[in-house]
């Protein structure tokens, strides 16, 4: 029984590393949130900004922070976390390091659904529902086109990018014909942006994203077993095809809800899982938490860049992430091309 008391060293090491990086990411998140709430046309000291967030201090500060800055910051955090988690899940479920909601068309589908709903004159509360519908539609298209190739690694992304572009074109077409009062939201649905978020959107989207994310976290053992291949997973009591489909639906929902909040922001979902793998090792329950934190930090940082560093007024955050993301995707594809194809 002495074996029981021996520490599982490698596992412990990886867990410690994950925990440490999670702490770093959480600290960054708090600092960046403070900075984001404090900076703008009126600069407020970070501490005052954080107090204003909970309704303390100068009424003017409270108004600026609570009504204008906080919804945007919270949207960035929630959507970043959701997108990153969705990316990590997709990469595992497809066994494809290039899979992400924006490389396989999901965020494009979500935007399409949202824009269709707006064009139809429906209320804002229905946007998340429409986005999920659009995301599922994109997944159906992807499945229809890519299924025959058994979701081969690069083929999936080729078809996915085509689906994404096709749906983006449809979005553009509809936006051109938007009534004037909706035209301002065009940026959000074409490149992804965080301008003009309000609490209604944040509450609805945030709650839905949180619930979906919890469901995803609860399924992590199942995902780990699925990683062993269909036969082993079946031998361990899963129904691999059914379970994979369910997890895929859950992930698509998560990504679509995130996209309902920010539009099709690129790069975050693709890059964060790779970054986390470099920092903390292969995916586990713990690293998925770190992935969410990192995604939140990354999207908020990108938004801070957009607002305060890049001297272009009204630049959407999606433009920054896409600029960073395109070369990253290229690098990944080149590396993938060099690797001998693994049989799965």
């Amino acid at each position: 029984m002495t074996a029981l008391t021996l520490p599982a060293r490698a596992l412990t090491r990886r867990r410690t590393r994950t925990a440490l990086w999670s702490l770093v990411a959480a600290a960054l998140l708090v600092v960046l949130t403070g900075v984001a709430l404090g900076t703008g046309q009126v600069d407020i000291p970070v501490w005052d900004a954080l107090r204003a967030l909970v309704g303390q201090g100068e009424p003017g500060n409270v108004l600026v922070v609570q009504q204008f800055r906080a919804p945007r910051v919270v949207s960035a955090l929630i959507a970043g976390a959701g997108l990153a988690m969705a990316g990590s899940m997709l990469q595992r479920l497809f066994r494809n390091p290039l899979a992400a909601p924006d490389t396989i068309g999901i965020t494009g589908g979500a935007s399409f659904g949202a824009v269709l709903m707006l064009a139809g004159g429906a209320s804002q509360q229905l946007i998340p529902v429409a986005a999920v519908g659009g995301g599922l539609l994109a997944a159906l298209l992807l499945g229809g086109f890519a299924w025959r190739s058994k979701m081969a690694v690069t083929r999936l992304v080729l078809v996915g990018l085509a689906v994404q572009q096709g749906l983006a074109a449809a979005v553009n077409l509809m936006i051109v014909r938007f009534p004037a009062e909706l035209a301002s939201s065009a940026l959000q649905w074409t490149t992804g942006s965080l301008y003009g978020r309000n609490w209604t959107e944040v509450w609805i989207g945030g709650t839905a994203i949180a619930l979906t994310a919890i469901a995803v976290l609860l399924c992590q053992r199942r995902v780990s077993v699925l990683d062993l291949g269909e036969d082993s997973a079946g031998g361990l009591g899963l129904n691999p095809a059914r379970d994979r489909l369910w997890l895929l639906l859950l992930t698509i929902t998560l990504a679509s809800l995130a996209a309902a909040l920010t539009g099709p922001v690129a790069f975050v979902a693709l890059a964060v899982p790779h970054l986390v793998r470099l920092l903390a090792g292969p995916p586990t329950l713990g690293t998925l938490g770190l992935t969410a934190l990192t995604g939140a930090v990354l999207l908020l940082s990108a938004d801070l860049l957009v607002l305060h560093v890049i001297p272009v007024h009204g630049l959407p955050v999606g433009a920054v992430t896409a600029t960073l993301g395109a070369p990253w995707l290229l690098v990944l594809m080149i590396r993938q091309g060099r690797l001998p194809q693994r049989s799965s």
Partner: protein
Amino acid sequence: MSSAKTSAPSAAPSAAAGPDARPADGSAVTAAETGGANRLATRGLGLRYGDRTIVDGLDLELPGNAVTAIVGPNACGKSTLLRGLVRLLDPAAGTVTLDGADIHRMPARTLAKRMGLLPQQPVTPEAVTVEALVRLGRYPHQRMLSPWSKADQAAVEEALERTGTAELRDRQVDRLSGGQRQRVWIALALAQETDLLLLDEPTTFLDLRHQLDVLDLVADLHTEAGRTVVMVLHDLGQAARYADHLVVLKDGRLAAAGPPSEVLTAELVETVFQVPCRVVPDPETGTPLVVPRARVRGSRGAAGSDASTGADASDGSAGSGATASAAPAAL
């Protein structure tokens, strides 16, 4: 990926089999012994991939508390049968029962607590450590929110100990040798704590030393840990040595079943494998040993003389280094 499959039975590797080779005396498992648990049976079993029928009308009774080997030529449906037995394939016809209960009516988790599987080509997740991998064997015993328990850890430790992989626990599985990796995968199945273990060609891609290591481990799992084992094997000599019960398939149908000493005859090997041969007692264990006839120049399958050197014993077993001194020339 089936490059290592052999079409001819290899000469049994008598040289490398030390005294610790398990003396499978080929005796039949008595009815009293099999009266207990873990008896797999099929009734009129038909298995298909798409519209291709692989296994047809198969009636089988596998003894409990024994080691069963399923053998047969390439594409005879051995692996398909194994997949059917663990419910990875739904039968197109007939049933599979475990101790009389239809496995397709059991909850998946219940079945996974009774049967463990080592697939032919499991997928090793990238950078996963040995211990993390073996832990996944506990999946059927865990509930969604249940924390990792002492029982879980104990099962993992026992599995690591028994397979001799405890000292590898911190290593990455994808950096291990083929033999080590196979032992790790067996450890995963052991951590599942099932009475039944089903192994699909556990020795493929391994050299002779590691083949024997794996088979000895399997034998120990039966004799020491009381596991019932069903495995698909390629090598008839190894199957005869290590199995109590042999199931011979040909074209998806049962060609013969029973103790190796009764089943493995020259006529059977010739009909099933199209290999003219003699069956002699294994000089080490006394179990049947298939010795293909020597090739006489110009004529295939001519009857060999007593002076058969076994030179053409066509040892094609998976990458084995068993070329030396494997011939039963002394007979």
